[in-house]
C-alpha cells in the first residue's frame, strides 16, 4: 500500500507568557487509503495534529515537521496557491461544530454549489445536481428543502450532515474528521459513519478520524493512534485494542461504564508523569 500521507516528527508550538509550549511533540505516522483513528482526551494535541496537516494551525502557533508529504507534495513548503488547490479539492476537514464551519448568510445549496464549482468546471445545473445528490447521500430526507435553507434553520444533526456533504462533494483524497459525530445523536452518528465508511471502501479515500470516543474509534477504524500530552503513546490495530499494552490506553478503556454494569466504583485513570516524557 503506498502512503497517501506521511508525517514525521510533527511538532506544534504555541508561545505563552511562560515561554513556548509544545502541544504536539513529535507525531509520526503514515496513512494509506484507510481509516486511521486518533484518540485522546482534551488537550492531548489530537485536534492540533489534524489542523497542522492541513496547514491550519491557528496563529501565533507554529507547526514544524521533518516530513509532511501528501501524495508526493511537500506540504511544509506549500505556497498559499498550493494550499488553495489542495484544500477543499483534494483534502478536506470536517469539524465538530457545524455552526462555525458553514457560512451563516449563504444558503446551504449555494455553499455546496460553490464548493463543486471550485473543484472543477462544470455547468451550474450540473453542480446543482451533484450538490443535491450529495445531500441525499448523507441521508438527508428532504434535500431540496435543505438546499434552500440557511444554516441556522437546520438542526444540529442536519447541519453536521450538510457540512459533511460540503466536504465530500469535491470527492477529496484525504478527509480529516475532527469529532465529526460527537454533536450528533447516536442513531444519526451511525448513519454518518456509514457514509464515511463507504467513501473509504468505494473511492479509496484516506480518512483520519479524530475522536475522544475509544469505543467508537475501535469499532470504526482500521488503525488507532492513542495520544497523550502531545505524543503518540501507542499505535495499534483497532481490532487489537483489547490487548493494548500502554497503561494509558488500558486506563481509557477501563474507565468507561458498561451497559452490562458490574464494576463499582469505576476504575479511574492514574496518570504517570513518565508517559509524557
Amino acid at each position, binding site marked *: 500500500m503506498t502512503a497517501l500521507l506521511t508525517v514525521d516528527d510533527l511538532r506544534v508550538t504555541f508561545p505563552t507568557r511562560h515561554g513556548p509550549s509544545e502541544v504536539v511533540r513529535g507525531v509520526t505516522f503514515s496513512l494509506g487509503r484507510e481509516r486511521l483513528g486518533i484518540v485522546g*482526551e*482534551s488537550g492531548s494535541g489530537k485536534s492540533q495534529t489534524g489542523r497542522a496537516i492541513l496547514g491550519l494551525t491557528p496563529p501565533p502557533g507554529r507547526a514544524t515537521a521533518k516530513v509532511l508529504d501528501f501524495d508526493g507534495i511537500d506540504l511544509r513548503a506549500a505556497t498559499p496557491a498550493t494550499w488553495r488547490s489542495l484544500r477543499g479539492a483534494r483534502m478536506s476537514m470536517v469539524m465538530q461544530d457545524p455552526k462555525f464551519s458553514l457560512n451563516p448568510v449563504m444558503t446551504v445549496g449555494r455553499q455546496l454549489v460553490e464548493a463543486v464549482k471550485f473543484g472543477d468546471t462544470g455547468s451550474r445545473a450540473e453542480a446543482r445536481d451533484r450538490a443535491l445528490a450529495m445531500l441525499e447521500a448523507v441521508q438527508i430526507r428532504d434535500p431540496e428543502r435543505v438546499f434552500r435553507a440557511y444554516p441556522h434553520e437546520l*438542526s*444540529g*444533526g442536519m447541519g453536521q450532515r450538510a457540512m459533511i456533504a460540503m466536504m465530500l462533494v469535491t470527492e477529496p483524497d484525504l478527509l480529516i474528521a475532527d469529532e465529526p459525530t460527537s454533536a450528533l*445523536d*447516536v*442513531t*444519526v*452518528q*451511525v448513519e454518518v*459513519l*456509514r457514509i464515511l*465508511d463507504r467513501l473509504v471502501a468505494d473511492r479509496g479515500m484516506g480518512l483520519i478520524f479524530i475522536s*475522544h*470516543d*475509544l*469505543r*467508537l474509534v*475501535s*469499532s*470504526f477504524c482500521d488503525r488507532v493512534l492513542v495520544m497523550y500530552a502531545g505524543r503518540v503513546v501507542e499505535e495499534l490495530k483497532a481490532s487489537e485494542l483489547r490487548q493494548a499494552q500502554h497503561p494509558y490506553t488500558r*486506563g*481509557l478503556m477501563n*474507565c*468507561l*461504564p*458498561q*451497559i*452490562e*454494569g458490574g464494576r*463499582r*466504583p*469505576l*476504575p*479511574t*485513570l492514574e496518570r504517570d508523569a513518565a508517559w509524557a516524557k
Partner: protein
Amino acid sequence: MGEVMLSVEGLGVTFRRGGDTVRAVRDVSFTVDRGESFGIVGESGSGKSTVLRAICGLSPTSAGVIAMGGQTLSAPRSAAFYRQVQMVFQDPYASLHPRHTVDRVLSEPLAIHGFDRREDRIEQALADVGLGEGFRFRYPHQLSGGQRQRVAIARALILEPRVLLLDEPTSALDASIQAEVLNLLDRLRAERGLTYLMVSHDLAVVSHMCERLIVMQHGRAVEQLSRDALAAHRAETDYTRSLLAASEGYSPAPV
C-alpha cells in the same frame, strides 16, 4: 419499594415560538422513590432535559401534576423547595459565573437561605467533592472541566437537598474525568441517602448510575425499564433496541 419522593403525572410542556407551538413534552409520568436513582434517556430534542427544567420550575408546564413527598408543587416554587431539590447542569463551562470565585459561588446559597457556620460548610463542601482548600478562591477560568463540575456539585449539595437533578453531568467531560465524577456522585448518594433524577444520552452512564429509567423520544416516554433489563438487552421497543445497538459502537451493516 420505598416511599415515593417525586412523582410526575401526565406532564406536558408546550413552548410557543413565533406562530408555532412546540410540544416538547407530552404526557410523561413516572415516580422516583426515596434514595433511588432514576434515569431519563433520550436523544437531543426528545424533551428529557425539559422534564428536569419543568420539575424545578425553569420551564412552564401546560399539563400534569408534579409532586414532592406527596405534596403538589406550587408555581413559582417556594424557597423550601429549593432547599430540597438542586440541579447540576450539563456544561460546567456555562454553569459557573465567570466573575465569581468558588468561594462566592458556594457562599451565596448559604446567604440566601440564612445558614449558619458558613465558613465550615464551605470547607466541608469542598472537601466532600474532593477539592482542597487551595481551590476556594479560584475563578472558574483557573479550573479544569472536571474541577468545575465538582464545584457545581458542591454548590448543589451545600443546601443539603434531598433530591439532585442531574442534567447530563458528565457529557462535557473526558472519559477518565467522567469516571471520577460518576464515582463521586455514587459515593455522595450512598453517604447522604440522596435521590437522583439523571438525564443522559449515554445508555452506559445511565445503566451504571440508575436503578430504573425511562426512554424518551419526540417528547414521549416510549419505554420504562430496569437496570437489569437494560443490562440483559431486554428492550421492548425498536427505538430502545436501536439505542442499545448504537451504544455498542459502529457496525457496518444496517441494524
